[in-house]
């Protein structure tokens, strides 16, 4: 083997042992700021990927069985944060329509938890997301988005309206501001840690 310094070669796979992905979901109703939050946090321009109904269940078989039939796909945004030299955190915005619940299950599997964005002017829009994560025992933080005219509502009122469990964290964010979004993630991870054995 050549002993010259291999300055250009990518590190061999063995040197990359210990690489670990993590993911956090970003959820809430339509237009609540999910894409904005992912954009504020991601070190790459937020990407979009498609998930297909058939691709999830059975590879690509169905498109072959029915030539010309396209799979039902839905675009989903995601972003990336390189946490340290081994850990990469992905943020996935959950698709808003309930007919895409099937995708949430795949997204939720193994996730650290979820940030659920709330617009106080349309508070009911987040109920489905809260129910989803609560029922599955997945840690979540409720992040009240700083839309105009919503600053006057105090936390207790929000907690009551959302019927939040007493220990569930509640925070305020401006999804356009990376610092406040990072703080929401910190709150979520602290909570997930407090709940882990």
């Amino acid at each position: 083997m050549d002993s010259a310094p291999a300055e250009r070669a990518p590190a061999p796979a063995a040197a990359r042992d210990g690489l670990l992905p993590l993911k956090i979901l970003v959820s809430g109703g339509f237009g609540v700021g999910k894409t904005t939050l992912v954009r504020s946090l991601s070190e790459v321009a937020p990407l979009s990927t498609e998930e297909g109904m058939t691709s999830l269940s059975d590879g690509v078989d169905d498109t072959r069985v029915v030539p010309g039939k396209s799979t039902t796909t839905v675009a989903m945004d995601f972003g990336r944060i390189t946490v340290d030299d081994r850990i990469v955190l992905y943020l996935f915005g959950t698709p808003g329509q309930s007919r895409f619940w099937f995708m949430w299950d795949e997204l939720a599997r193994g996730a650290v938890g979820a940030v659920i964005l709330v617009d106080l002017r349309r508070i009911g829009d987040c109920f489905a997301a809260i129910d989803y994560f609560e029922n599955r025992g997945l840690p979540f933080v409720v992040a009240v988005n700083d839309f105009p005219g919503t600053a006057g509502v105090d936390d207790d009122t929000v907690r009551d309206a959302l019927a939040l469990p007493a220990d569930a964290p509640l925070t305020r964010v401006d999804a356009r501001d990376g610092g406040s979004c990072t703080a929401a993630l910190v709150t979520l991870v602290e909570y997930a840690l407090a709940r882990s054995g």
Partner: protein
Amino acid sequence: MPNYALTAGRTRSARMDLPIEALVTVTELGLAQRPGLSPEQRTILDAAAEPLSLAEIGSLLGVPIGVARVLVGDLAADDYLAVHLPLVGTDGRPRRELLERLLDGLRAR
């Protein structure tokens, strides 16, 4: 072009059920075999010089996750790609040590 054309008509493979956040990196074998591979496969191997996820590969190629999963699964089965899976405990959640490292990393931002 229908998506399945990318997978050369294969509809099933012994691929792993890779989660969307699974990371891949190119191996030395993958680098050595690269010239004989398809354009899509070469695109994946080139991008995997740095760790990237199944989601990013789907986005890069403009294909649904399911198609990216087949392409990556085949490359991994041939040891052209190394796969780095999430580490979860018996409860299906990320391990405590990992959460601690995540917290440190986020606080340092």
